[in-house]
């Protein structure tokens, strides 16, 4: 890894907001700061011809403070990607309805015009996607894919942007960056491609980065490297990070706060340490029991959550998770539990897991 001081000296005047964010991040940890991103009652409904409208996200609310790392965790299909795409304004133009508010520094992104949103994307809010090969344009060199975002948002010329791009590739740990600038995506390894995508996302030093399962498509050893890199970069630059994953193991090493999603709704939220030490929702508990742990006694079996998402009940009249729950009670199938907040925790459950100790 190259050192950060070198890059910030060659690139003057751009780090100021993020230095401020770093301070804010500290303040946030001590309690109290305006959220950078404030999502309220976000709903996304897909209308498909000849089919019932499908509400993929059903009223999701959460905050991201400057410099904070927030996890969105849940099984496949629970609405993680749709949530992130709705925030970015990247859902397909037609066939869906988005409601609620997504306030970024006090501006509701959902009300911005296409042009205004284009000015924000890549500059204030950036995104890293799951599959690094298919997410990079196969027919243009890596260098241009980095410089084009600098040209767009920093008003730099291609020539002026090239050394910055080189610096960025170096900073995300791509060896021989001069050569890699000229290379095409297929000439890079999977890990390097994801590093390149991260370099692209961080090129304009956004205050918010959304990473949608950035390591799922990679080998296990590479996964760990990419996570370490992300962690290092957000700490170094003070960028707030929304980490989307189905893997609680990823969350454990990275996130300050964790939102657990089930069937398009948040079922539990809490500080990472609290949540891991004391999961209250049976779903969170099940997820935790199903991650392999190094410190677990030998021979202890992993317990997967029984059933699948297709067993879900509709949230409107029940707890969607009830059919798969380890401890359902009668009311679980009769009405929807509300998300109740207390002491920095939020929980949507009629019969939470007992607090041990």
């Amino acid at each position: 890894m190259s050192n950060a001081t070198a890059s910030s000296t060659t690139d003057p005047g751009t780090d100021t907001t993020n230095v401020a964010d770093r301070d804010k991040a500290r303040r946030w940890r001590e309690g109290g700061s305006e959220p950078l991103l404030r999502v309220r009652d976000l709903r996304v409904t897909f209308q498909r011809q000849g089919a019932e409208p499908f509400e993929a996200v059903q009223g999701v609310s959460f905050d991201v403070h400057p410099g904070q790392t927030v996890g969105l965790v849940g099984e496949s299909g629970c609405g993680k990607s749709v949530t992130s795409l709705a925030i970015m304004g990247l859902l397909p133009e037609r066939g869906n309805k988005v409601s609620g508010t997504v306030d970024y520094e006090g501006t509701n992104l959902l009300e911005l015009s296409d042009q205004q949103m284009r000015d924000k994307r890549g500059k204030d809010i950036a995104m890293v996607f799951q599959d690094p090969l298919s997410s990079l344009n196969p027919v243009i060199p890596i260098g241009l894919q980095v410089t084009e975002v600098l040209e767009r948002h920093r008003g730099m010329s291609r020539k002026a942007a090239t050394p910055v791009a080189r610096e960025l590739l170096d900073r995300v740990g791509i060896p021989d960056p001069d050569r890699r600038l000229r290379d095409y995506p297929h000439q890079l390894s999977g890990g390097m491609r994801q590093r390149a995508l991260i370099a692209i996302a961080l090129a304009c030093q956004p205050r918010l980065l959304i990473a949608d399962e950035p390591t799922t498509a990679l080998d296990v050893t590479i996964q760990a490297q990419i996570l370490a890199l992300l962690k290092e970069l957000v700490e170094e630059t003070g960028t707030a990070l929304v980490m989307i994953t189905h893997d609680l193991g990823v969350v454990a090493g990275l996130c300050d706060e964790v939102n657990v999603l089930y069937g398009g709704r948040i079922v539990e939220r809490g500080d990472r340490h609290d949540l891991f030490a004391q999961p209250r929702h049976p779903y969170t508990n099940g997820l935790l029991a199903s991650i392999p742990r190094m410190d677990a006694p030998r021979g202890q079996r992993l317990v997967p959550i029984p059933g699948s998402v297709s067993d879900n009940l509709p949230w409107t009249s029940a707890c969607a998770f009830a059919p798969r729950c380890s401890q359902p009670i009668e009311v679980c199938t009769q009405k929807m539990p509300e998300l109740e907040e207390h002491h920095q925790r939020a929980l949507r459950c009629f019969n939470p897991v007992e607090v041990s100790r």
Partner: protein
Amino acid sequence: MLRFIVRRLVQMVGVLVVLSLLLFLWLRSLPGGTVSAILGERATPQSRAAMEAQFGLDQPIWVQYGKFVGRVLQGDFGPSTSVLPGTDALTIFFQRLPATIELSFFAMLIAIALGIPLGYFAARRRASLLDNASVIFSLVGIAIPVFFLAFLLKYVFAIKLGWLPVSGRQSGDVDATRVTGFFVIDGLITREFDASWDALKHLVLPSIALASIPFAVIFRITRASVLDVLDEDYIRTAESKGLTNRVIRGRHILRNAMLPVTTTIGLQIGALLAGAVLTERVFSFGGLGEALALSFERRDYPVLQVLILAAAAIYVLVNLLVDIMYAVIDPRVRTR
């Protein structure tokens, strides 16, 4: 890149060898053979034998093929028998080549300049009025026989409305100096701009008729290809970078979508001669297509041979160009 081109050129020679063999066998298998074609069915055995000896037809077949190739390589196809009796077949070919190139050029220009933008916008506004209308338009373009379309255009715009010339490449009252044989270019070189303008007017209707099929095919492939590319993850990445519409369109969508379109354009150029046969007939355009039709009707084998070999060579050459274009656009091809 150079090795790539050399490899393709070697392949091209292979293709031409196979083709010349097929052509040779085809000529040998003509009903009654060359001799009857020339002497007629009722020639005496003596005169047949004399003629066979004269043409070397009494020698082993591989010797005949060797001689055939030798003559072809020297450009010696013999004189035309009926299209323009006595004139060297190759000379006829070169006289008529510019007309067909000019016509094909404008036809492809129309097909590409209309097909690609329309295909792009139809895909971007999928299921819109523009999309539906242009899909129907392209279906008509494919379904309508070129011959009929050419007649229709000629009847309406030349005969009835009198807006454009009925036939030929140049009006009789225009006295133009010939330099290259490309009439539009000749006028520009000699500064006889009215001659260029007149030649252009003669090109409009035949070009439209000839463009109908390539346009329809290029439009449909572009549309399908853009639809595919729009679904790709890298387009979402480009959008997530906040790039302008213009950059996303040119650099990210079209550049990728052009890969299959390039192949299609190549194939369409290769197939253009078939359309030119019909179009040139209707407009008496005096190009290779017309020569092909005439030489076939009148059994002018020397001229036929030249035209068939040339058509094949052009086809192979265009495909080579397509492959090079492909490598230019797609680095994955280049670096393999």
